């Protein structure tokens, strides 16, 4: 109402009434944002979300009630808002923003786009669409008590990808397969096991002992021998885990004895591994059964899920979950695959039990289902108030943009405690675009180190262009004077190339690949730097970045400035990028970072 107050604000009032805005996401931030937008006077709002409502959303996504569980978030959000503001003009899309229907033309309809997302891939994509359409974007994120809002305007400010974000946390294959030292290693192993047994088998998610582990070799010659032996072994001799399981009829006890006894005994023969580490102790089903004592009375004060089971309890949970999953698989029919879901009780039971058994074997204290779920499911704790604050800030930035006051826009950080200058909310001036940004620079270019004889075209497409560089549907041409097409986004056109190596196409050191994403209106020139010296488990490296090293707390905060990325990332830590695990964790910032003028938020992946 205040906006009708003064002549200078009449124009703003008019904008509010006529402009169209897009809200990407109708979850925690989205619900609060929609409410603020309509109460502030925004008339024409479009909201998109691919998700449906879950009971765990109800502690903060206040536009939803219990009766709405299972329904489309965007749709129900719209209906709820119309309840208290029937005159609002809202269009809801139950869809993914990465659907090619939402092209540059679609984005150009809007005066303002506001993200309310929970994953990096979508943020990257919207970033590019807004650059392509030249529409201002307000980006935001929350995790627990912390939050952040910033404004992205082509040519004026940094884009979302100007600052390299720390890469997803990954673990080396040998840590997962041979020498776990932390509960998370066991949990990742259990998730891999789920896929190997019940889901989509993935060569990067091996669970069996890794004979080629360099640490297992006593001398360099042995290491080479081990490596080549394991390579030769290949798929011909070895039966896949799933096939083996099938051959036993998914017998839980046979599975148990292979995974928790036989394979562990095998690991013990790789004695060098246990020279400086505590050796694992194999489990025997029958022995455990005989020793089993009645379960202790559960302490009434905790949640049922917060109990830590005993070893025999885990065994039983393992057996029951395998049996349930086996039936689920059979019901689905031949060649069926299950997809792991933290909210599927049997899937969660399976990971809980398998991970805990492995923790016990490797002398780690076992974890409750509650804790395992947090880690396995990448759950980021969330509350209503943080989202309410951030959504309020988003609208305030939006008003500045609509008033044409871009220079007054800020990045604002919400801290848990006030800093030395008493600030709980810290506004910071926006940075100009980075000249070397591989997304928003005028002719984006990167150099990628890889082995042209070992990198397949499919890897280039999926691991490098899609995962690392955020393209959705890449087209790649070799700059060889002939414009040879390596990858076409049209389905089937270049499928034959997928398993071939880059060198097969004459790509070598110094070659240049032009990669486009038509939808994102994005062209990236990739300079190939051939190398034969990449670290184990590492497929490629982007030159000029050290994404692996956990940034030391005292470093320039600008280097790691990033929005809380959300829980949908790093669901399956892969072994294809750098193997060094970061020491990053949770949302607790190091104390000294709280007090710098520009506190930075690291990516809030749990793992």
């Amino acid at each position: 109402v205040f906006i009708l107050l003064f002549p200078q604000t009449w124009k703003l009032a008019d904008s509010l009434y006529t402009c169209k805005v897009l809200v990407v996401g109708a979850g925690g931030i989205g619900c609060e944002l929609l409410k603020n937008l309509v109460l502030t006077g925004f008339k024409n709002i479009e909201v998109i979300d691919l998700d449906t409502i879950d009971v765990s959303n109800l502690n903060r996504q206040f536009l939803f009630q219990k009766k709405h569980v299972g329904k489309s978030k965007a749709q129900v959000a719209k209906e709820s808002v119309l309840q208290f503001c029937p005159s609002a003009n809202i269009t809801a899309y139950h869809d993914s923003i990465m659907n090619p229907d939402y092209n540059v033309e679609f984005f150009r309809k809007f005066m303002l786009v506001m993200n309310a997302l929970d994953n990096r891939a979508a943020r990257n994509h919207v970033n590019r669409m807004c650059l392509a359409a030249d529409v201002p974007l307000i980006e935001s994120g929350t995790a627990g008590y912390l939050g952040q809002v910033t404004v992205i305007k082509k040519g004026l400010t940094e884009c979302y990808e100007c600052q390299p974000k720390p890469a997803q946390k990954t673990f080396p294959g040998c840590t997962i397969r041979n020498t776990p030292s932390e509960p998370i290693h066991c949990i990742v192993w259990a998730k891999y096991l789920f896929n190997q047994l019940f889901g989509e088998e993935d060569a990067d998610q091996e669970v069996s002992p890794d004979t080629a582990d360099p640490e297992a070799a006593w001398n360099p010659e042995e290491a080479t021998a081990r490596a080549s032996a394991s390579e030769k072994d290949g798929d011909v001799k070895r039966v896949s885990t799933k096939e083996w399981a099938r051959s036993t009829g998914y017998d839980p006890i046979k599975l148990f004895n292979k995974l928790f006894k036989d394979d562990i005994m095998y690991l013990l023969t790789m004695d060098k591994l246990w020279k400086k580490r505590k050796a694992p102790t194999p489990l025997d089903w029958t022995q455990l059964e005989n020793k089993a004592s009645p379960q202790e009375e559960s302490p009434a004060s905790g949640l049922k899920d917060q109990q830590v089971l005993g070893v025999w309890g885990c065994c039983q949970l393992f057996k029951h979950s395998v049996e349930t999953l086996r039936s689920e698989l059979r019901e689905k029919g031949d060649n069926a695959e299950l997809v792991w879901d933290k909210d599927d009780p049997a899937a969660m039971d399976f990971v809980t039990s398998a991970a805990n058994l492995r923790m016990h074997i490797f002398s780690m204290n076992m974890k409750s289902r509650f804790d395992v779920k947090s880690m396995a499911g990448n759950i980021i704790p969330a509350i209503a108030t943080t989202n309410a604050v951030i959504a309020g800030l988003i609208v305030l930035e939006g008003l500045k943009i609509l008033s044409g006051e871009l220079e007054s826009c800020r990045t604002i950080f919400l801290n848990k405690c006030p800093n030395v200058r008493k600030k709980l909310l810290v506004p910071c001036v926006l940075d100009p675009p980075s000249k070397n940004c591989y997304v928003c620079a005028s002719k984006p270019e990167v150099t990628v180190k890889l082995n042209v004889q070992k990198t397949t075209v499919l890897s280039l497409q999926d691991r490098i262009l899609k995962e690392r560089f955020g393209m959705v549907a890449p087209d790649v041409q070799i700059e060889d004077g002939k414009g040879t097409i390596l990858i076409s986004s049209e389905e089937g056109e270049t499928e034959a190339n997928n398993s071939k190596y880059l060198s097969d196409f004459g790509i070598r050191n110094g070659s240049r690949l032009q990669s486009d994403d038509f939808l994102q209106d994005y062209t990236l020139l990739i300079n190939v730097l051939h190398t034969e010296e990449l670290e184990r488990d590492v497929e490629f490296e982007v030159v000029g970045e050290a994404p692996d090293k956990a940034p030391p707390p005292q470093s320039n905060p600008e280097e790691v400035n990033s929005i809380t990325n959300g829980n949908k990332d790093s669901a399956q830590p892969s072994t294809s990028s750098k193997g060094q695990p970061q020491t990053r964790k949770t949302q607790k910032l190091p104390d000294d970072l709280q007090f710098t003028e520009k506190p930075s938020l690291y990516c809030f992946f749990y793992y």
Partner: protein
Amino acid sequence: MIEKEDPIISEEEAAQYDRQIRLWGLDAQKRLRGSRVLLAGLGGLGAEVAKNLILAGVKGLTLLDHEQVTEESCRAQFLVPVSARGQNRAQASLERAQNLNPMVEVHADPGRVEDKPDDFFLQFDAVCLTGCSRDLMVRVDQLCSQHRIKVFCGDVYGYYGYMFCNLGQEYSYVEEKPKVVKPSGDSSDGSGAKKAKVDPNETTMVKKTASFCTLKEALEVDWTTEKAKAALKKTPVDYFLLHVLLKFRTDKGRDPDPQSSEEDGELLRQIRSDVLDALGLSASLLNDDFISYCFSEMSPVCAVVGGVLGQEVVKALSQRDVPHRNFFFFDGRKGNGMVDYFGPN
């Protein structure tokens, strides 16, 4: 007294509160579950606080408001249905508020705060006042703190907003700190076997106490002393703006109204000079800028202040985490949110 009866959290609660239990812990959730809160004023800010507390899962929330729903109040908050014109604002907000979380007992009371007898307040663990006059807030704060009831005040004026709290002279709480992991020196075993690894994520709860002054003391700081004058440089001017706006409310019985923007603007200018003069301070401390921006309860500002205020109530009821002591000021023009203490040392 916060009831800790029924220590068992139901499966329904565990499922619904999962994401917040993972943040502040089960114990805090149980304390919330045993708390009763009074919320006065269901304007823009009040509705935000109501939403936040109901979602958090308090035992009971009483919505107290004597005002009637007007055309404007429909647009100002999201709990009142458009058809409710003429009804009492608390009662009109009840249904949507209750629907936010059926597990909370939400009551609506159409009475006036000033008419409530002293013992009315004693049934609550915390009281939150919005839209109240300075004298009323001071009186209620006095009464409540005598009975160890936690007091919160807050308002939004255009782009500006504040929150105040009084948690008593001896408020104890816990703070989560990372556990200090002692290096395991157990290498006497020939094979160099190590101890089982300690979870690096382990934390420990440390007990702390803090002391809060009354609202009266907080507002009646003496700025004429040398010490105070020296502190002035680091003092957010929002504090003085608050004095001006509270005085306006006392004098006019309402907040600055866009309908009478010119005369209200004039009056604000005058009050600014009077207030600063009475405090022994220069009128230039608060320039004219604020006048254009303190009209009407702006929704996004209500969201920010309501979020901070709501979270402070949750913290105080659960006695967990460092409370903001004792004011929070938000300037929506600058994006500044500051916490500062005003009162005797």
